[in-house]
C-alpha cells in the first residue's frame, strides 16, 4: 500500500537522479534535447497517473494520503513540470553551466510538490515544503553571473528562511497545545476540545504565515515582484504555477482538513487578507513596465482571487479554487512560454519590447494575448469561468454573512483594474508598432506547448464540465457543504 501511494514521486526521483548520473558519466551534447526528452517523460508519468486510484485510508502511519484531492494536484504539478521542462529546454542556452543539474532540480522540486499534494501531517508538511523551497532558492539564483538573478535568489532565501522559521515554530505550538501533528487527529481533538486557547491560535497563525508566504498573500507578498523579475524565466513560471499551487494545496488541506472545526477563527482573517491581497496585487501592477514583474504582481492578485474561494468555506469555493489553479497553470505557462521565446530573440522583458509581436510572430502574439485575456477573466476563456465560480462561492457565503458582499465588491473592482494592465500588454502586441520588425522564430516544441496551453484555455472556457467535475470530486474529500 505505501509503495503504491508514492509511485509517482518515486518515478520523478528516478528521473532526476538518472539525469544527474548520465550527465556525470556521459554528458549529453545537446542540452536542449535532454530537456525536451525529460519534458516528454514527465508527460508520460502524467498519463500514467490516470491509472492510479484514489485511496480512502492513509499511508505511512497517517502521514500521507492518496485521495482524489492529492491526485488532482499531482496531475496538475506533473503537467506544469512537463511544460516547465520544455520551457527550460528553450531557455537552456542562456544557462552557462549545469544545465542537467537545472533539470534535475526542477524534477526534485516537482517531487516535493507531489508530496505536498498528499500531506496529512505537520511533520511531512514541513519536510515537503522545505524540499520545494530550498530547491527554489538554488533555481532562482541559477544565472550566477547575473546580479538580478542572484538578488532574487538571496531575497527568496532570506525571506523564505524567515517564513520557515515561523512555520516550524508554529508547528511546535500546535503540537504542544493539542498533542498531535496529524491533521485527522487534530480535527478530532479540536472538535471535542471546544474553543482552543490563545497559545494554539498563536501557533496556527504562525503556520499560516509560512503558507501565506508560499502563495504570496498580503502581508507576506513583498518578495514576489523582485523574485519574479530576477529569477530565470522558467523558474518564475514554476514559482507562479507550481509553487503557488503547492501553497494552496497545503492551505486547503490544513484549513479544511485539520482546522475546519475552528473556522470561526480563521475565516474572517482570510476574508480580510483576500481583500487586501486583491487590492495590493492589482493596484501595484498598474505602473509596471517589466512584463515579468507585472506577472509577479498579477500572481499576488490571483492569490487574492483564490483566497476568496477558501474564505467562503463552502464546497463551491473549494472546487472553484481547484478549477482556478488548474486553468491558471495553463494560462500562466502560456504567457511565460511566449516570454521565453520572445526574450530569446530580443533580450528584453520590458512591455515595450513586445510591441508589434502580433506581426513579428503571430502565434506568440496570439498566445500572449489569450493568456492576458484569460488572466483578466474575459469570456469565453477559462479565466472567466474560474472567476465566475469564485465569485459565486463568495456570494453564496454572503447569504449567511453579509460581510462577504464586501469581498465580492473588492474582487469586482480588482477585475476592472486588472483589465487595464493586462490589456496594456495586448495593446503592445497588436496596436503598437515595433522598431524592429524582423520575424521572431518559434521552435516546434514551443509551438506544440503553446497550442496545448491555448487549447486548454479555450477548451476549459467553453467545455468546463470535465475540469469542473475533476475539481469538484477532488474538493469533495473535505465534506464541505
Amino acid at each position, binding site marked *: 500500500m505505501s509503495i503504491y501511494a508514492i509511485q509517482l514521486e518515486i518515478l520523478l526521483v528516478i528521473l532526476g537522479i538518472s539525469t544527474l548520473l548520465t550527465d556525470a558519466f556521459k554528458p549529453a551534447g545537446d542540452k536542449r534535447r535532454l530537456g525536451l526528452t525529460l519534458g516528454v517523460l514527465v508527460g508520460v508519468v502524467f498519463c500514467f497517473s490516470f491509472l492510479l486510484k484514489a485511496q480512502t485510508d492513509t499511508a505511512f502511519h497517517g502521514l500521507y494520503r492518496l485521495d482524489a484531492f492529492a491526485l488532482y494536484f499531482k496531475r496538475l504539478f506533473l503537467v506544469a513540470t512537463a511544460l516547465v521542462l520544455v520551457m527550460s529546454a528553450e531557455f537552456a542556452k542562456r544557462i552557462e553551466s549545469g544545465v542537467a543539474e537545472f533539470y534535475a532540480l526542477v524534477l526534485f522540486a516537482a517531487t516535493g510538490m507531489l508530496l505536498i499534494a498528499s500531506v496529512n501531517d505537520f511533520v511531512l508538511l514541513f519536510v515537503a515544503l522545505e524540499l520545494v523551497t530550498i530547491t527554489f532558492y538554488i533555481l532562482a539564483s541559477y544565472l550566477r553571473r547575473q546580479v538580478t538573478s542572484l538578488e532574487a535568489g538571496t*531575497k527568496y532565501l*532570506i525571506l523564505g528562511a524567515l517564513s520557515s522559521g515561523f512555520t516550524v515554530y508554529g508547528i511546535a505550538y500546535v503540537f504542544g497545545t493539542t498533542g498531535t501533528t496529524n491533521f485527522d487527529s487534530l480535527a478530532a481533538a479540536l472538535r471535542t476540545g471546544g474553543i482552543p486557547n490563545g497559545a494554539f491560535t498563536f501557533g496556527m*497563525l504562525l503556520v499560516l*504565515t509560512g503558507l501565506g508566504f508560499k502563495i504570496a498573500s498580503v502581508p507576506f507578498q513583498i518578495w514576489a515582484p523582485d523574485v519574479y523579475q530576477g529569477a530565470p524565466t522558467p523558474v518564475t513560471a514554476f514559482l507562479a504555477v507550481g509553487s503557488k499551487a503547492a501553497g494552496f494545496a497545503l492551505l486547503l488541506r490544513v484549513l479544511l482538513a485539520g482546522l475546519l472545526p475552528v473556522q470561526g477563527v480563521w475565516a474572517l482573517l482570510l476574508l480580510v487578507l483576500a481583500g487586501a491581497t486583491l487590492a495590493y496585487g492589482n493596484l*501595484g501592477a498598474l*505602473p509596471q513596465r517589466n512584463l515579468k514583474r507585472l506577472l509577479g504582481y498579477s500572481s499576488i492578485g490571483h492569490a487574492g482571487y483564490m483566497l476568496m474561494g477558501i474564505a467562503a468555506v463552502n464546497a463551491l469555493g473549494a472546487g472553484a479554487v481547484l478549477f482556478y489553479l488548474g486553468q491558471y497553470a495553463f494560462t500562466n505557462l502560456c504567457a511565460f512560454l511566449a516570454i521565453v521565446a520572445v526574450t530569446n530573440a530580443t533580450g528584453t522583458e520590458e512591455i515595450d519590447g513586445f510591441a508589434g509581436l502580433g506581426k513579428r510572430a503571430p502565434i506568440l502574439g496570439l498566445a500572449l494575448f489569450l493568456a492576458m485575456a484569460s488572466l483578466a477573466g474575459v469570456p469565453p476563456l477559462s479565466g472567466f469561468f474560474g472567476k465566475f465560480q469564485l465569485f459565486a462561492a463568495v456570494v453564496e457565503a454572503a447569504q449567511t454573512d453579509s460581510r462577504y458582499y464586501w469581498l465580492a465588491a473588492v474582487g469586482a473592482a480588482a477585475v476592472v*483594474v486588472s483589465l487595464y494592465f493586462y490589456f496594456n500588454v495586448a495593446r503592445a502586441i497588436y496596436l503598437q508598432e515595433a522598431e524592429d520588425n524582423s520575424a521572431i522564430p518559434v521552435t516546434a516544441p514551443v509551438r506544440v506547448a503553446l497550442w496545448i496551453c491555448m487549447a486548454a484555455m479555450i477548451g476549459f472556457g467553453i467545455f468546463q464540465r470535465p475540469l469542473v467535475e475533476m475539481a469538484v470530486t477532488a474538493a469533495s474529500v473535505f465534506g464541505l457543504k
Partner: protein
Amino acid sequence: MNPVWIILFAPLISAAVITLLTRKAQMLSALISCAAIITGFVLTLQLYSAMGHGEAHSLAPAPLTWLVIGDLVKIEIGATIDHLSVLMLLVVTGVGSAIHIYSLGYMKGDPGFSRFFACLSLFTFSMLGIVLSNNFIQIFIFWELVGVSSYLLIGFWFEKHSAAEAGKKAFLTNRIGDFGMMLGILLLWTQTGTFCFAELPAKIAAIPAGTLSLIAALIFCGAVGKSAQFPLHVWLPDAMEGPTPVSALIHAATMVAAGVYMLCRVAFLILPSETALHLIAWIGGVTALMAATIAIAQNDIKRILAYSTLSQLGYMVMAVGLTGITPAMFHLTTHAFFKALLFLGAGSVIHALHHEQDIWKMGGLWKKTPVTFWTFLIGTLALAGVPPLSGFYSKDAILLLAFEHNKLLFVIGVLTALLTAYYMGREVFVVFFGKPRDHHAYDHAHESPAVMTLPLVFLCVLSVIAGWGDKIPHFISEHMAEHGEHPALLTAGLIAVPVIGFLVAASIYLRPNPSDEPVKKALGKLWTLVENKYYFDELYALIIKYVQGTIATLCELFDRFILQKVGIGGLAGTTSLAGKTLRYLQTGNIQSYAFLFGLGVTVIIYYVVVR
C-alpha cells in the same frame, strides 16, 4: 445520425473545412461546397418521398436542448419537418445546387474563389437553419447569420468601394427590421412564456387582441427587412454589387424569400389579427406597384431584375396579408425558379460581355448566346405570367385571392402585372434584339460554358412545369379550399394583361435602335421621379444626417466631457495614484522587506489572539 442534421450541418462543415484547411486548393474547396449542398438536395428528395408514405412529424429529429435557465427559459435547437419546410428545403437545396454549379464557371479565375464558396456554404447553412427552426430564438439566430453571410457575399469584391458600401447598407437596413422582430419575439414571450412554434398556437387565444396585433406587426418588421418591403426596400437594388450567382441565390430565390417563409411559418400569429393582416397586405401591395414602376426606368440588367424581385416579393407578402398562405408559398417557389434563372441568364450575358451591365451597351445578343437567350426568354414569360408557364398559375392564384378579398389591391396587382410584362419586355428587346451597340463587346461575346448553361436549362425546365396540375399548392395544404368558379372573362383578362404589356414594350423597343425617348416624353416629370427611385435614398440620407447626426453629436459630447473627463478620468487618476504609491513600499531593500514581514505577522497575531 438523422438525415435532417446532415442536411443542415453539411454546409457548415464545408464552410469550416474550406476556411481552415483547403483555402489554397481552389477547385477542391469548390467541390466540397457543391458536394455539401448536393448531398442536402438528395437527402431532401428522400425526405420528400418518405413524406408521401407516412407521418411527417415522425421524420423530425429530437431537438437538442441548448440553454436552460431555471423554469423560466428553455431554448432548443430543433427541426420542424412538415410540408412547408420540406417544400422550402427543396427550393433552397435545389436552386442552391444549380447556382453552386453555375458559380464554378462564373467565378472561375477570381482570386477569392475558395472564399466565395466558403461564404456560399455558410449562407446555405444559415438559410437551412431558418427553414428548419422550431422556435423563435433559433429562427432569430439563423436570421442574423443569414444577414452576416449576405453581408459577406454582397461585399465579396470588397476592394470595390460601392460593393463594400452596399454590403454595409444591406446589413444595417436588415438590422432595423431585425430589431423590430426581436422586440416582437420578446413581447410574445412575456405573454406566453415559450418560444416554441409547436406550443404557441394553443396559447395565442389568451393574448389580448391589441397586444397580438402589435406582436404580429413587430415580427412582420423582420420580414420587411429580409424580404425588402417598403420602406426598408432600399438595400436590395444596391446588393446587386455582389457577384451574380449571389444575386440569384440570395437576392432572388432564398434569403429574400425567408421573410415570406417566416410569415407563413408563424401564420398562427398573424391570421387572428385583422389589423396586422391589413398592414401586411397593403405593405405588400405598395411594394409591388412601387418597385414595378421604378423598374421601367432602370438601365442596369441586374437592377431591373432586382426591382422585379421587390415587386414579386410584394405579391407574396400581399398574399399573406390576404390570408393566402398557400398562394404565397406557391409564388415563392415558382418565383425562386424563374428569378434564379433570370439572374443566372443575366450573369451569363455579363460573363459574355466581360462584366458589362448596362443594357444600352448590349443588343442583338440572341444570335451569339442562344442558350442564354432562349432560357432568359422563357424565364421572362414565366415571370410575366404567360400561360402555361409556372408564373401564370402562381400569380393568378394571388390575383384571384385579391379579387375575392380586396378589389383595390386587385387593381394594384393587375397594374403591377402589366408593368412587369412591360419592363421585362423592354429588357429582353434591348438586350437581345436590335442592332449591337458596342461592336467591340459584341464581337467578343461568346456563349458561356456548359457548367453555366446546364443550370440554366435545369431551372428553365422547372420554371415551365412547376405550375402544372396545381401540384405545389396541393402539397402545401392538402385540404386547400377550392376556388369558386371565376368568370371566364376574368381569367381571359388576366391572360391578356401580360400580352398587352409585351405589345406595348415591343412597339417602343423592338426596333433596330431603340431608346427611352418616347416614354420619357410621355411621362414627363414622372419619369424623373421613377428614374430616381422616388428619392428614397436621398430622403433617408437627410433623416440620418439631421436626426441621427444630432443625437450622436449630443451623446458624443456627453461621453467626452461628462463621462470620460469627470467619471473615468477621476476614477482612473485615483487608481493609478494608488498604484504609484504602493511602489514606494517595494524598496528592493531586504532589511525593510524582512521588517515588513515581521510587522505583518505581529499585526495579524495582535488582532486575532490579543483582541
